[in-house]
């Protein structure tokens, strides 16, 4: 994993991904994220917010996390790229998370590089107060890219991938803050994919968007799976059914059920899941 500074370069990682892309479908479905017996606490282990979570996130698939507020789905998402490191009392109390085989808790893992490999899109779009172009180029510049032609190409490609290019190609120098909410969210997705992550985490990416912008982002999510592994936290169960291949249902810090989305929403195995998704939750 490239997030361990001294071991592998970014280009090695890219070639490894290319190699994987040429593998058969079975390999394409291999787990990118492996969560084993994971427990997590926000208060140095006094209480576990997540308890004994086990799940594998398959490659090039969209996985949805659903569950009531406070069930731990966003917490788990933030464990994947160590966003919880910013909280002094937060810690993994048991188990492990492996991203492409490497333990993210390994002290040698650089969280900055980890977050480059595992990009994140938040509930509220958060473009930098810079131009549209500079927002997308930002990660590349931080990563040391100086070649303007290369940056131009990646900015254009990323904006195209984020289904935003046609709307902003003549406004690249304008402030990103002048874009609509939906456009800002897609700009944040473009910014994320510009640094070529393996995994994109999305924490309620459409909750602040109108229905049309939501549809555009949902369409984008389904196309992103061709090249990325996507994990999306959502409170909108129709959205989970529309965009995801697999769905995990969490309740009170535990993973209750994890299955193919089509199966989970038509014939869930657990009563708790059935009660929640059908709106019988007291």
């Amino acid at each position: 994993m490239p997030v361990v500074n001294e071991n592998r370069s970014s280009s090695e990682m890219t070639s490894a991904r290319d190699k994987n892309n040429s593998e058969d479908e079975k390999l394409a479905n291999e787990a990118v994220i492996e969560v084993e017996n994971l427990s997590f606490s926000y208060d140095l282990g006094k209480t576990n917010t997540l308890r004994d979570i086990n799940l594998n996130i398959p490659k090039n698939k969209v996985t949805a996390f659903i569950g009531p507020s406070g069930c731990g789905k966003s917490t788990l998402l933030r464990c994947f790229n160590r966003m919880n490191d910013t909280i002094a009392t937060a810690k993994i109390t048991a188990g492990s998370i492996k991203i492409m085989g490497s333990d993210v808790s390994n002290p040698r893992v650089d969280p900055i590089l980890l977050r480059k490999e595992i990009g994140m899109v938040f509930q509220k779009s958060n473009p930098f107060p810079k131009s549209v172009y500079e927002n997308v180029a930002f990660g590349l510049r931080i990563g040391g890219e100086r070649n303007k032609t290369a940056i131009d190409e990646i900015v254009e490609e990323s904006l195209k991938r984020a289904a935003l290019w046609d709307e902003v190609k003549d406004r690249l120098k304008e402030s990103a803050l002048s874009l609509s909410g939906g456009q800002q969210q897609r700009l944040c997705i473009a910014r994320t994919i510009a640094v070529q992550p393996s995994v994109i985490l999305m924490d309620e990416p459409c909750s602040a968007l109108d229905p049309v912008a939501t549809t555009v982002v949902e369409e984008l999510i389904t196309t992103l799976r061709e090249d990325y592994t996507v994990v999306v936290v959502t409170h909108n169960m129709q959205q989970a059914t529309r965009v995801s291949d697999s769905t995990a249902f969490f309740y009170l810090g535990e993973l209750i059920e994890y299955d193919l989305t089509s199966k989970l929403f038509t014939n869930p195995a657990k009563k708790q899941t059935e009660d929640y998704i059908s709106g019988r939750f007291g």
Partner: protein
Amino acid sequence: MLDLKHTLGDFEDSLRNTRKEVLTMASVAQQNLGSAVTGLLNRNEDLCNDAIAEDEEVNQLERAIDQRGMEILIRFNPVATDLRMVVAAMKISANLERISDQAENVARRARKVLKKDAVQEVNLIGPIYELAANLLKDAVKSFAEDDANLALTLFERDQVLDKLHRKAIKKYTTLMEEDIENLRTYLNLIFIVRCLERVGDHSVNIGEETVYINQGRSIRHIGPSALNDEDED
């Protein structure tokens, strides 16, 4: 059935009313079939006319259930058991509508039979009707009580009905050659037997939908053995 009520009262009411309408429709369809066959066996044309007239009520109920089902799908986006119930209710209502059509066909054929002299072999219809009516009754009961085990018994019982149906057709075909004067009557009785056999098939379909609601697994065109195969997988 789920113990907890849905958080949305409207949704809960719509689901409950859909079930209620399916059961009302089943009741009318059963009654129509009973009137048609009783009209034939007791040579009572009024009962046959009732079965023909009442088919319209079943048609209306089918339209109402379809409309309610579509409204539920649009308004509440049901999932899991709720989704299966709505989809299955719409399919069950289509089967009940076909059963009522079969009752109407029986009644129309029966009226033709009643216009001719009575033949003793009309009595072959009785046991076939008993089997078909029991299949239908239990199919409806399995849906009403969400009883997949009862629904699964329908497949074998329908095969007994099929056997009786073949036997009766053979008998009436022979009689058509032996008793040419009553040829038209035997021909009408063959059509009636076929209608009753179709009632058995539709009852099995209703049972399949009950299994789908209860277990989330489709056994259509495969039969109950599919459940065992899936369990082994």
